[in-house]
């Protein structure tokens, strides 16, 4: 069963030129050693301009890829070409065990994804893996103790630095309050940059990122709305600082949450091995994807999923350097994935990682089943989440029987009968969402940040609308 489709290849291609170049590689004569296994791995060697052919491997279930060419586009034309050959299904791929260079790539990949599992039939791979484990078992206990002590020292030092940084942050916020937040946006760019740099020095990158994002967020708003937004955002910063200082009084979930908000990271391995972390298995639909460049020149790629049969959302967040050219999520809105998601611990769990994939992403034309709740109930879910996690960012809302309405250039979402709350739609979605105005009633999902709703998708009588 091929997980790849031409639509998907088109979606992940960095640009049209890459697709055109990949098309030229559809001739089997360019390839040698084309093969695939049952786990969805496919590989081959593509003759480039040099003497040595490029080694290309792809993983169909999660659209992973690797090529030895020096291209700075990701995926490169060779990876796209191999995917294309697989999607078309016209070229014969030998079936067999993966060569060592393919297995090496598989081992280096993140565990948990379907392709990352070692091929069961590969006895050579098993031996290598075992050798690795044996080597790990022979670690010197004294060296391990020294390393643990060093780690503890580092952690203690960082806690001290963060505590000092939080005091500086509070002092900075106090200064802003004394000067008056009505005029904060006038100098927000410069002053936020200075204190963000201090937070970086204090090893609190989470707070630094929030501070760096504050000025662009303010400037995106109309001027009258900026002072109150400054109150909201600076208030959250103080809440995080205060919660961090009082960690011992918090629940375990909230403590984990506030530590991540400050900048402590949880490795994927630690998350997957955390028995207390929430796990949700089943069939998921891709609700939408977001891709934004952060001030630190990292691209933040979010893929939002909605569990089929419950109102649980999950978001996968990846950060990639802008220079790599990777611009979008490998998932397409509407796709269905069978997976177990493990959630980062939080009082309002959203961010997750895939622990196990039981069915790779497949295009799906069935309507996404929105939980049986209207707009008012969806907004109440946001209120509950906000109460549980005061520094909550975007929160997904799923709602049935709503209507998009227009007032001037601005679009709003309200219940189809007009009763209850009215949510303004993000200004950048005014044009793409305009055709929804013609529809009497739709089911929709979007991300609400307390000010604007970013619509992810809508199931309508004339088909599915997706944000792109």
């Amino acid at each position: 069963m091929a997980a790849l489709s031409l639509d998907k290849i088109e979606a992940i291609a960095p640009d049209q030129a890459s697709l055109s170049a990949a098309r030229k590689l559809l001739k089997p004569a360019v390839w040698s050693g084309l093969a695939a296994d049952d786990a969805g791995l496919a590989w081959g060697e593509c003759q480039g301009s040099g003497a040595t052919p490029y080694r290309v491997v792809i993983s169909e279930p999660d659209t992973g890829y690797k090529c030895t060419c020096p291209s700075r586009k990701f995926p490169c034309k060779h990876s796209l070409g191999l995917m294309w050959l697989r999607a078309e299904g016209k070229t014969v791929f030998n079936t067999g065990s993966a060569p060592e260079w393919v297995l090496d790539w598989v081992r280096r990949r993140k565990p948990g994804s379907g392709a990352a599992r070692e091929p069961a039939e590969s006895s050579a791979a098993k031996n290598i893996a075992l050798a690795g484990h044996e080597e790990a078992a022979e670690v010197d206990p004294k060296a391990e103790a020294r390393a643990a002590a060093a780690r503890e020292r580092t952690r203690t030092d960082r806690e001290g630095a963060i505590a000092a940084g939080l005091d500086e942050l509070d002092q900075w916020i106090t200064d802003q309050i004394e000067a008056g937040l009505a005029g904060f946006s006038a100098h927000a760019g410069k002053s936020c940059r200075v204190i963000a740099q201090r937070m970086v020095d204090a090893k609190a990158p989470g707070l630094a990122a929030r501070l760096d994002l504050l000025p662009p967020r303010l400037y995106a708003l109309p001027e009258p709305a900026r002072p109150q937004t400054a109150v909201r955002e600076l208030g959250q910063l103080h809440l995080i600082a205060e919660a961090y200082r009082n960690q011992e009084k918090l629940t375990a979930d909230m403590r984990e949450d506030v530590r991540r908000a400050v900048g402590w990271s949880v490795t994927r391995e630690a998350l997957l091995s955390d028995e207390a972390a929430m796990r949700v298995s089943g069939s998921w639909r891709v609700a939408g994807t977001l891709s934004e460049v952060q001030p630190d020149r990292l691209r933040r790629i979010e893929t939002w999923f909605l569990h089929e049969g419950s109102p649980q959302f999950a978001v996968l967040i990846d950060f990639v350097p802008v220079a790599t050219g990777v611009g979008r999520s490998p998932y397409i809105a509407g796709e269905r994935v069978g997976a177990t998601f493990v959630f980062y611990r939080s009082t309002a769990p959203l961010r997750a990682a895939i622990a196990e994939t039981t069915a790779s992403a497949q295009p799906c034309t069935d309507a996404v089943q929105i939980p049986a709740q209207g707009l008012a109930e969806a907004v109440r879910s946001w209120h509950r989440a906000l109460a549980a996690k005061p520094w909550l960012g975007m929160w997904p809302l799923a709602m049935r029987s709503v209507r998009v309405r227009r007032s001037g250039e601005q679009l709003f979402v309200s219940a189809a009968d007009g009763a209850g709350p009215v949510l303004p739609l993000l200004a950048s979605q005014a044009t793409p969402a305009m055709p929804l105005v013609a529809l009497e009633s739709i089911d929709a999902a979007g991300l609400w940040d307390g000010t604007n709703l970013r619509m992810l998708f809508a199931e309508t009588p004339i088909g599915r609308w997706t944000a792109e």
Partner: protein
Amino acid sequence: MNVRDLKAHILPALLAGTRRQPLPGVAGLQPDSLLGALSLSGQALRFAMPEGPPEFDVDSWPQDTRRVLPESVRPRMLRLLNANRCTDDSELAVALACSQLRLRPHPFDLPKLDGFVRRHSQHLGVAAQYWAQRDTKTESRKGYFDEDGPAAENWTEVPIAVRVAYLERQREHDPAAARSALEQVWPGEPADARVRLIGALQTGLREDDRAFLEAALKDRAPRVRMIAYRMAARLGGSPANNPSLAACLERIQKEKTGVLKRRVALKLELPANVKENTANRWIREQFADVTFDELAGALEIPIASLVAAAKDDQNLLFALAMVATTDRRFHALAEIANELPDAWGRMSESGFDEFSFADEQREHWVESIVRPREWMPEPALPAWGWLLRRIQSKLPEKVMRDVLKSKWWSDQLGGEKKPGTEVIQLFCALCPAGLRDKLREQIDELDADRKEVGLMLLDTLDGLEAVQ
């Protein structure tokens, strides 16, 4: 302390700056706790829902009876029309196919195809017209009518091109009723519209129209008078001297040639100040308002012999080609094309575009004048592009088959300098359905860059035509 206290007393102090306006004493909040006041106020603001507008706009999307493009074609069409190098010709071919097949873009695709929709809304149905005019002030908007949509009660409200098309259709069924409808609105029409509308009477021109045409001979607009003259002349018995005819006759020399058999030879003498590069335009303007009958009568040559008499003068043959086109004398046009195969190429250079045909006439005209095996324009793009825009349709199979067999075409494909994507797209746009496979076969050897968008166009047109 409650939310009202925070908003009424605390928030103003935070905004103004506590140096100027110290925090007021509110129960439950210490006056020196600036940060606590900030966090509480921020959270209070976060829980507050935004207020909707006092009223929403009433959007009245017109009811579009055309079928929405099915899912099988949508992605293909989006890919084509959003491709970087998709040309106007490809766009026009898709729009014309939609018009002919009574299809319309999916409403959700309108924002993604905004430029295409704005440029070709007249072919894409009333919903697309509404979309294209959504930013236009209400008072400046035109009505939304499908090309074959207007009826007797509303035909005066539609754009002029649609009105002319409506009148032409009416003339085919009931010429008297169509003329009567025109007579009713005639006095109130501006000169530009009168010029276009009177031209519609050429379809089904008959003796009953003479009274109306004679009244039009006294019209304020000289152009209307000229068109009325030529139509009255077609009815026989020119109502008055045509000043354009006199001007043409001044430039035509008539003499006898031949040794054994004397025959009449006509020659067109261009003014001294008309150079080679402006000759086509001058001839077009000079002969715009004369008819075949008038010329034959004034020169005292039978109509059947007129072309033979002019065969030694290419400029005069070109003039007769335009007159024959306007008079719909396709037999004479075919005779002219035998002597002057590049007549249509010269028409394209001259800016001759004041003619329109019903479907059958259009095919007849193309078959009469376009002789690809005898002459192909060099460069191809302007002339074939002009032809596409004039006929607003595909080439007849016979003509396209000749194109594909022509030496010019095989030289293009096999030569050193291959045709660019613009040329390939243009011929794909002109290619009738029955010859698309042959065209695909012929362009298959080209580089992907040159053929890719053309192939996408062929696939899209196939997809559109396959819609049941």
